[in-house]
Each structure stands twice: as structure tokens, then as C-alpha cells.
């Protein structure tokens, strides 16, 4: 191995070891801004609430069913803080993150129209795009 190849190899190793998998950095940054840590959760559900404005009930039910699950963080993305207020109601916000600036969409590209479930394994993150109705089935836990 000549010197050039040696440094290329070293650089590649460095990149892979520090970067983590795709989405890891983005999720970490988003959560950090809201004083949460990605390592505290096994699943992170990112839901663009504005994508279906008549689907409030589905999201509300999902939040209620999972509010006592400390392994699942739900990121609610909406330009309307009133909408998020009504969805959250009196629920504990330990496992809810309000993204009113829509950073999940504009800055980190973590979600578009359909909900996305991120499974966190150390520094590895697996992404699954699901249908809104899947939120009620809990299907993403069985993948």
C-alpha cells in the first residue's frame, strides 16, 4: 500500500466510523435542539400532521396509545402550534417532540407526506415509510 492509498483508506475508515448510518446525524441534531437524545429511544416516529388535515383522529389515537411507551418518541411536524396543542392535549410530553418550525422537513428531510418510522440500533438507523393508517395497527413494531 503506497502512502496515497494509505491516507485514502484512513479517510474512508474515519468517515464511516464517525458518520453513523444515514439519518442518524439528522435525527441526532433534531433531537439535540429539543434537548433530547437519540440514544434514549428505540423508535422515532416522524409524522407530518399537515399532510392530512382531516386525519387528526388517527394521530391523536396513536399518541394516546403510545404515551406511556418510553422507547418510542413521536415527532409531530406542523406549521400550526394550535393543531399540535389539540393533538397533545394533556398528554405527557416526555415522548413527544413538537416541530413547529418544520425542521424535520426543511432542514433534515426526515419526512415528507407519509409518516416515517426510524428504528435506532446504536448508531445504525433504519427508515420505514408507512401509511397513516398503519399507525393504528402498530405494524411497524413487527418488521
Amino acid at each position, binding site marked *: 500500500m503506497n502512502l496515497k492509498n494509505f491516507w485514502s483508506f484512513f479517510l474512508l475508515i474515519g468517515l464511516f466510523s464517525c458518520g453513523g448510518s444515514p439519518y442518524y446525524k439528522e435525527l441526532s441534531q433534531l433531537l439535540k435542539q429539543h434537548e433530547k437524545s437519540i440514544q434514549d429511544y428505540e423508535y422515532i416516529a416522524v409524522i407530518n400532521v*399537515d*399532510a392530512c388535515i*382531516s386525519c*387528526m383522529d388517527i394521530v391523536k389515537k396513536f399518541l394516546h396509545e403510545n404515551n406511556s411507551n418510553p422507547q418510542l418518541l413521536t415527532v409531530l411536524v406542523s*406549521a*400550526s402550534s*394550535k*393543531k399540535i396543542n389539540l393533538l397533545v392535549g394533556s398528554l405527557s410530553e416526555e415522548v413527544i417532540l413538537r416541530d413547529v418550525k418544520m425542521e424535520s*422537513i426543511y432542514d433534515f428531510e426526515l419526512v*415528507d407526506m407519509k409518516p416515517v418510522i426510524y428504528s435506532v440500533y446504536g448508531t445504525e438507523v433504519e427508515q420505514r415509510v408507512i401509511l397513516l393508517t398503519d399507525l393504528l395497527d402498530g405494524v411497524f413494531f413487527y418488521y
Partner: protein
Amino acid sequence: MKNIALIAFVIGFVFSCQSGTENQRTYGTTLSLDDSISIELDSLTSFEFINVYYHENDSGEFLIHVNFLINGFNVYDLNSSRLLSQVSWPKSGPFSMSQINGLTVVNLDSIFLYTRGDLRKIVLTDYKGDDPEVLITKSNTEKGDAPDSFSFSGHTSSTRAPTIALGNRLYFSKYSNFDYYQASNINDSYVAEFSYDLKTNKMEPLTIGFPKWMQGKIWHMYYLLHSKTVNNKGEFIYSFSGEDSIRVSHKDGTYKAYQAKHDDQMEGISPYGDRIPPEQVLKDGVESFIYTQIMYDRYRNVYYRIVEKPLSYDPDKPKNYRAYYAKPVGCIILDAAFNKIGEVDFADDTYISYGAFVGKKGLYLPRLDPKYKNFSENRVDYSIYKLNMIGDK
């Protein structure tokens, strides 16, 4: 020789400029910003005023907003901009509606409510939500004359595709739930409209479907969605988002197309050869003319066709649906005979192409662009555009 080349260049330049000028048509009619109103919003109402309905009676003008946050609706007095009533509909019980997604205002004492994706039950109530009455609908499929794809599901009721009350019937629109990127779904048996007979409680399909030239091909999904309105003669006007024409259902039962495109649109749309990746769909949507809404102005006997104009797609920006919000918005004005009499490009960073309505004073456009400088979650601002002849004040 150098001089000849220079003269040729100058002549060529002058003529190319003239040619460009000739493409710029001039019209005698325009829309001018005349007035504005602001509606203050309470804690139970989001700024997303994209499903609204205008109503006028002897006592004034009203705006009825479908409030998804409370599964109900708000009624505003447009003259005072004040909230008159707010109705949150029950989700259980005999008059329940699980997810109200649209309504039809016949008058303030008769408002039909529709629930998302299901028309088996319709509720009739007044503007305070009192005296509810339930209508159970029936399909007429027992007659055997309804096509296979006809069903109650997939109906839409919105400002751009309103459910229209006319005579003893309600006229519904449908946006199907099928895969729009499957060419075989874009066929001639598709029913885009159906009517409900209030006397017999029966639903019937209408003969409006995908335009023939679009059938059997794959298109950007948005091109296939339609908007509709009705004029003072009871003629329905349909506008498919990708078509440079509108379609009019005349009283004699014939449909006729009338060109109603923006002058900057030089080419028609093209189908895809096969299914394409989502980012290409987004790019094509952002870079094309999309006609989102057709409205009839009964006060001035003209039509407004709202259009999203193309925007150069920036691959470095976030690749999601909000890219559409950055598109410039314009309006094509048609006279009573569907001749184009005007074209307007609205101010950038102020409007989106949804939620407009016509009132006595003119065309109301909500300032809902995310970049609108005075945006507030607690208020919706409307610009009111007045129709006038160019040169008039």
C-alpha cells in the same frame, strides 16, 4: 465584412425582441388589488383556510370554514370579520360524523355536512349546529347502469371541488384512491362526478370522467384531479389541473372544451412512458402549469381559473411537497362565453393556489404562502381583487 456581420447581428437581435413582444397578448380586463380583510382566529382554529365556502343573504356575507381541528365548522361574518358560530360535531351518537371534510351551504339554516371518504350518511343542520337531520343515501347500482368503478368512497368536498346544491340534487366530486401511475386506471369507465337526489335519496354517476386524450396513459397525478363550478344557467364547468382547456357541460347535454391557459404555457403536458421516481414527479409538478381551481363570479358573470406557474426546480432544496408552495400563482379570466379576457400574475411569496373564493366585492385570495411577511397563526389575511377594465380606476 465586420460591419455586415455587426448589422446582421443587430437586425437579428431587434427582430428576436419583436418576436418576443408579439407573444405577449394584451387584454382589456384585469384584477386589481382593491381591499383586504383580516379574520382573527381563536385557539381552536388553525390558519389553514383552504376549505371555505362563501354565502350571501339579505343580512350580509358569510364565510364558512371547515375546521378539521374540532371536526366541525366556523361561520364568520365577512363584513365585520367576526366569528358568528363555531360548531364541533359529535363523533358518536345518532347524528355522528367521524371526520367532517366538507359541506354545502344552501342557506344558513340548511348546511349539508359530509364525512371523509364515506357518503352513506349525510347530515343536514343549521349554522349553529342545531336541528340536525340524517340522510341515508342509496346507490342506484341495482339499476345496473352504474360503472364498476362507481362507489361512494373517495368523494371529495373542498373549495376547489365543492359539492354543489342545484335543484333537488347535490353534485359530488370524486378523487379516487387508486394508483394514478397505473395507465389502466386512467380509463373511460372512471366516474369523476356523481349526483345525489334529495327526493329519492339515490346516488347516480354522471358522465364526466378523465378527458379522452389522457386515457390509457400515465400522467403526473395532479394533472388528473379536477375542480368545478356552476354558472347562473346551471351549466357545470370542469377544470382538470393538467389541461389547458376547461370543459363545460351545456344544458343540451353536450360537453365542450374551451381553451383557458396561461399565455406563458407554450406546450401541452406529456405522459410518462413508465412509472417514475418520486423526485422526478416532484420536479415535474414544480416545473409545470397546474390549474388548481375554477370559480364562477356570479356578480360579474365571469370565470377565474387559478394557476400555479412553473418554478425552476432546485435539487439542493428539500425534496418534498412544500416545494409547490413556492410556485407563483396567477389567474386567467374568462367572460360569460368562455373567451379569455384577462390574465393576472399575483405577487410572489404571498399566496398559494388554494382557498380562493368569490364574494360580492371580488376575488378573495388568502395570504397563506409560508413566506408571507405578516404571517400569523392567529389571523388569516385576505386580499380582495376587483375586476376592472384596464385604465379604469
